């Protein structure tokens, strides 16, 4: 019997080692896997590279991971926010490296990583400082920049419900990066509000098929925000 469910968040992250590259879902707080991040902080691997749209809000989630000093590098599109003071301080003092990626390129690089694409020409960022030093090409009268895939050791994502095969459905705009990150990591770990019996998710409404998911842990409702 296939059973990807785990009893607790700690057992989901025991093998995450120093130097790992980890995708972290969420757009702001929506879809942020807070409980898995808390488990990661407890496990405390160092020198992590974190790929996420933002660089933490307030003092929870990614901000807490950053504050714990475990992150060497952030890859994200929008680190600066009203409440990103933890990242801001670390960045200004040179304690964390930043790779700034336009959001669509971030998504597309993750998608390429998950879909086996070696590189792609994107129009986004052409002629801007983001493209500095990168290969460019005119195709069919339009200018493009060559970008490479992002593949990671782990993805930590948050979904609404999951089953023991790892099938996932999301809740509203908390879906955001979850589906693409699930495809781009060697090991994808999903926290869900509840684990439902196999066969109870509508097969036509499953957003992430279990083939992209390795571990599922139930957190219960009310965990968000």
């Amino acid at each position, binding site marked *: 019997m296939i059973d990807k469910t785990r009893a607790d968040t700690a057992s989901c992250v025991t093998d995450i080692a120093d130097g790992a590259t980890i995708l972290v879902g969420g*757009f*702001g*707080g*929506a*879809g942020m896997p807070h409980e898995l991040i808390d488990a990661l902080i407890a496990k405390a691997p160092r020198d992590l590279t974190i790929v996420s749209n933002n660089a933490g809000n307030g003092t929870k989630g990614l901000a807490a991971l950053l504050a714990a000093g475990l992150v060497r590098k952030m890859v994200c*599109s*929008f*680190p*600066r*926010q009203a409440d*990103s003071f933890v*990242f*801001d301080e670390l*960045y*200004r003092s040179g304690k964390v490296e*930043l790779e*700034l*990626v*336009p*959001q*669509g*390129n971030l*998504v*597309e690089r993750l*998608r390429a990583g998950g879909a086996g694409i070696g590189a792609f020409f*994107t*129009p*986004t*960022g*052409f*002629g*801007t*400082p*983001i493209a500095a030093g990168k290969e460019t090409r005119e195709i069919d009268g339009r*200018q493009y920049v060559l970008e490479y895939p992002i593949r990671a050791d782990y993805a930590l994502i948050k979904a609404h419900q999951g089953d023991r095969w790892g099938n996932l459905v*999301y*809740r*509203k*705009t*908390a*879906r*955001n*990066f*979850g*589906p*693409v990150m699930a495809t781009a990591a060697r090991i994808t770990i999903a926290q869900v509000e509840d684990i439902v019996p196999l066969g109870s998710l509508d097969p036509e409404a499953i*957003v992430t098929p279990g083939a992209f998911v390795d571990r599922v842990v139930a957190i219960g409702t009310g965990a*968000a*925000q």
Partner: protein
Amino acid sequence: MSSAATDFKPWTRIEMAQRIAADIPEGAVVNIGIGMPELVADCLPEDKEILLQSENGLIGMGPKPGPNAIDWDLINAGKQPVTLLPGGAIFDHVTSFTMMRGGHLDIAILGAFQVAENGDLANWATNDPNAIPAVGGAMDLAVGARQVFVMMEMLTKTGVSKLVQRCSYPLTGLGCVSRVYTDHAVLDVTEAGFSLRQLAPGLDLDTLRQRAGIAIQAP
């Protein structure tokens, strides 16, 4: 030098937003950027169906929820709670940026630091070395939307024109701006540079040119 019109009153931000909203045709798929453009959402005419798209994976965005209806899993690009209209849809980031970069948005409304007469846009970073950079989805909108409307005050707080020959700030996109809605005037970006569409009340073209410090074609 001609003197500035004495009875000139710049449009307020709400008036700018109203002006943009009135120019959006029924059925348009529109992405409204973070910041000043958010005012446009509140000015959309109720007798037209206009589809607001948000980069974090929704289309058919409705008005802000009441205080008891806030759902932090239903937010917009500015991470503020929103609602979904009947007929709205949720999707993931891949689909959202397919929509944005693939030419499926009719209009993107963005704020700007500078707009150049060749349509170049600078709206994500200044040259301040101490600033934390952040770009989000702006570059994707710049290259992907069929039309990019910029909404901004024409002058900085110190009176420097944001309409320029060439941007001095880091670029967001090349030649991407179609139209600029400012507090002084509405301008099209054409092959010949800026072209006047409409002047704020009490302003004449010469005064506009002088304040903008840039060539502006008569309409």
